[in-house]
């Protein structure tokens, strides 16, 4: 276990995030002779998709499936690549001078990088339905984390609701692990399939097609799947039932999921330009073909660059790393990036179909009335809509009026909802409305951690009057 005090003051390449993109990038760069450190905030590498790949207690390989165990090779390569891999390391700031603030076991350090690859992946899209803040309601991703990391399977009456490939994957994994699911409430708008038709040819030649079909068949064979137009979590102090389309089902656990979106907080706080992706309904960084952002020296690889899945993330990490090595050590030998580009193109080919087919319904992204939009500050959809009517044009002004996005999650759980609500109410586009300006620390740190930053006596004198 590397401690904060053991870190060098600077590294040629800092990779942030230990999922497929970060692992592939760190491996390639270290093998090319670049001094590389990878910071990952989890106890072990793998990111979300390969979470617990080196430590999971789930022994039956069929439960998590072949795609999960494919992450093992990436992890092994990274560990022998020569890159310094630091787990339990939370990066809380990155700025245009390529200063990286990191905390390890309560001690903070500032590290100077020559290049940075941000591989902070994705997070689940907010799913603001009535009652979504009740105990007993959690995201499907959180349930998957518990399964991979601890081998935990939900007990009690469990209902799943939502849309998207990951929801189906988790349903299959939970069934294989022996969980009993009362029902899967499918919130995918039925017209999506018509809209997705033009993208079918690309999808049918992509690796996603046969995998997806198998998964759907597996789940539908063992679980009640009900297409629904509304979902509500009901209970007084915890979840007691799930209400959908006027029907009610008693439940102890509701697992929600409607897709994943890039985790943009660190890249936005670093000053990287972002834009609205109208097909994936999220903000993503503006990148060149080597995944370089608008901030010189900072690249964004993996799902943080736009959702494309684990294997695509690894290829993006390789492409970004090749660019980094070429910039840092022009004489070093690197693989031809075209190989990775070709592989990436294969992986991305079916994506448009999935994006359109699983586009979440407007009603589940743009809540109304008393439904909570910002969980940290308990701001309702109605408050946001009313303020938009009063002339509040953007999320940053909304922050000042309602404090939405100002809690510890820094907008991760409300950012997209607030943008879409303002756009909806003001009859404009999310692209026009924009996103929160995000401020470091992008992950909260304690005063004690901050005070633990080494400060030289000269620096201390300089800040006294």
């Amino acid at each position, binding site marked *: 276990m590397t401690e904060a005090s053991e870190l060098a003051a600077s590294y040629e390449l800092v990779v942030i995030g230990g999922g497929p993109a970060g692992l592939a990038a760190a491996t390639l760069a270290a093998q090319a002779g670049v001094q590389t450190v990878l910071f990952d905030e989890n106890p072990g590498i793998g990111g979300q998709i390969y979470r617990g790949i080196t430590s999971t207690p789930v022994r039956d390989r069929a439960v998590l499936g072949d795609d999960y165990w494919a992450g093992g090779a990436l992890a092994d390569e990274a560990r022998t690549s020569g890159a310094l891999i630091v787990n339990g390391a939370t990066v809380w700031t990155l700025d245009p001078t390529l200063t990286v603030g990191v905390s390890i076991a309560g001690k903070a350090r500032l590290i100077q990088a020559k290049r940075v690859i941000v591989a902070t992946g994705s997070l689940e899209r907010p799913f603001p339905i009535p009652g979504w803040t009740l105990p007993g309601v959690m995201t499907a991703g959180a349930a998957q984390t518990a399964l991979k990391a601890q081998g935990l399977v939900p007990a009690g009456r469990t209902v799943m609701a939502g849309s998207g490939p990951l929801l189906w994957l988790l349903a299959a994994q939970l069934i294989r692990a022996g969980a009993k699911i009362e029902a899967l409430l499918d919130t995918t708008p039925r017209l999506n399939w018509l809209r997705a038709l033009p993208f079918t040819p690309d999808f049918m030649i992509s690796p996603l097609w046969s995998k997806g079909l198998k998964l759907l068949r597996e789940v539908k064979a063992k679980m009640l799947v009900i297409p629904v137009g509304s979902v509500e979590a009901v209970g007084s102090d915890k979840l007691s039932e799930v209400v959908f389309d006027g029907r009610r089902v008693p439940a102890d656990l509701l697992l929600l999921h409607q897709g994943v979106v890039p985790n943009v907080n660190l890249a936005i706080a670093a000053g990287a330009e972002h834009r609205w992706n109208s097909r994936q309904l999220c903000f993503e960084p503006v990148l060149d073909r080597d995944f370089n952002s608008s901030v010189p020296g900072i690249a964004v690889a993996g799902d943080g660059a736009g959702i494309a899945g684990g294997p695509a993330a690894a290829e993006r990490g390789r492409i970004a790393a090749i660019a980094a090595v070429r910039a840092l050590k022009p004489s070093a030998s690197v693989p031809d990036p075209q190989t990775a580009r070709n592989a990436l193109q294969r992986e991305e080919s079916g994506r448009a179909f999935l994006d359109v087919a699983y586009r979440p319904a407007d009603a589940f992204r743009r809540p109304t009335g008393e439904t909570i939009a910002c969980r940290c500050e308990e701001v309702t959809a109605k408050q946001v809509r009313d303020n938009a009517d009063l002339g509040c*044009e953007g999320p940053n*002004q909304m922050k000042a009026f309602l*404090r939405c996005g100002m809690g510890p999650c820094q907008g991760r759980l409300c950012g997209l909802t607030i943008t879409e609500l303002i756009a909806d109410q003001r009859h404009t586009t999310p692209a026009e409305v924009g996103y929160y300006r995000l*401020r470091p620390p992008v992950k*909260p740190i*304690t005063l*004690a951690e901050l*005070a633990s930053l080494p400060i030289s006596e000269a*620096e201390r004198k300089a800040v006294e009057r």
Partner: protein
Amino acid sequence: MRTADVVVIGGGIHGCSTALHLALRGLKPILVEKDYAGRHASGVNAGGVRQLARHLAEIPLSISSMEIWEHIQELVGDDCGFTSHGTVLVAESEAELASFKARVDDLRLRGFTHEELIDRAELKRLVPAVSDHCPGGVVSRRDGAADPFRATQAFRRRAVEKGAEVIEGVMVTGLKRLGEIWRVETSDGPIEAPKVVNAAGAWADRIAALLGEPVPLHVIAPMLMVTSRLPAFIQPVVILRGRKLSFKQLENGTVVIGGGHLATPYRDRNATVLDWTKLAASAETVWELFPAMRAATIVRAWAGIEARMPDDIPVIGRSGTSEGVYHQFGFSAHGFQLGPGTGAMMAELVATGSTNVPIDGLEIDRFRTKI
């Protein structure tokens, strides 16, 4: 072609306050703001409403401002989040306390009684959480704090209700004298008015330069950080002298920590880059002064872009080169409290040609020979 009685450049609390007070005098102001009202220092400062520890030249303005803050609801139709629990300047040593006493005595001789020396017992009564090594301090009991963005927006809103026009997202690009009239060129077409007020904050030197009146303005970005919510433990705003710190707990429980450590500003991009080694020094100061804060969580840090003058006091009054132009900028990281009073004073000066509030020593002419 738009026309007005006065063009106010800059939508900070100063520009908005001046526009409101001009409108209250029956004049037609047009306020031009390059971003939106309160986008920079006025909207993101620490919110201190402080008479304590001000430069002598500012004290009359600060006192006149305080009277407006205490009736802010009546003026702008919003309480602006203003609360009044005093500001306490904490001494960290007996020597420091002695220097504070000299200052308070000097103010008394000049007729100012708002600063009051306090001993260890009164300090502990006002700020029970303060560390035991502090022997006393100075309090200004009428001081307090307000919500900066809300206050700036309230001034903007009331100015519009009273007849001002506010144009946001529009940049001033030129100033031309046409007889008795100023033609203000903007990115959205020209505006003509006999009078112009330059309240452009960190960008005010560029407006002054258009008038052939260069000023030594430094662009600064004081940093602030805020914690997650904590149980209520402190009411007054606390400031230090020897080390840079300002410290206050908001009604919602969050604690705002500032004090003037500077980030690197990039005013052409509306961007700042924070300096974490200085914020760490702030954290260390808080650690020593308020042991109860050690486990608090920092959730956000930021910096607002503003102007600082070499002598740390603002530029207020008539242009030295251009008839009909007035300056109101350079508040050097302590202009928020002054906004309401300075706007009233400036409107009086623009409308009547003179003002009852002394602004001696603040005119732009003081820089003429120094450049």
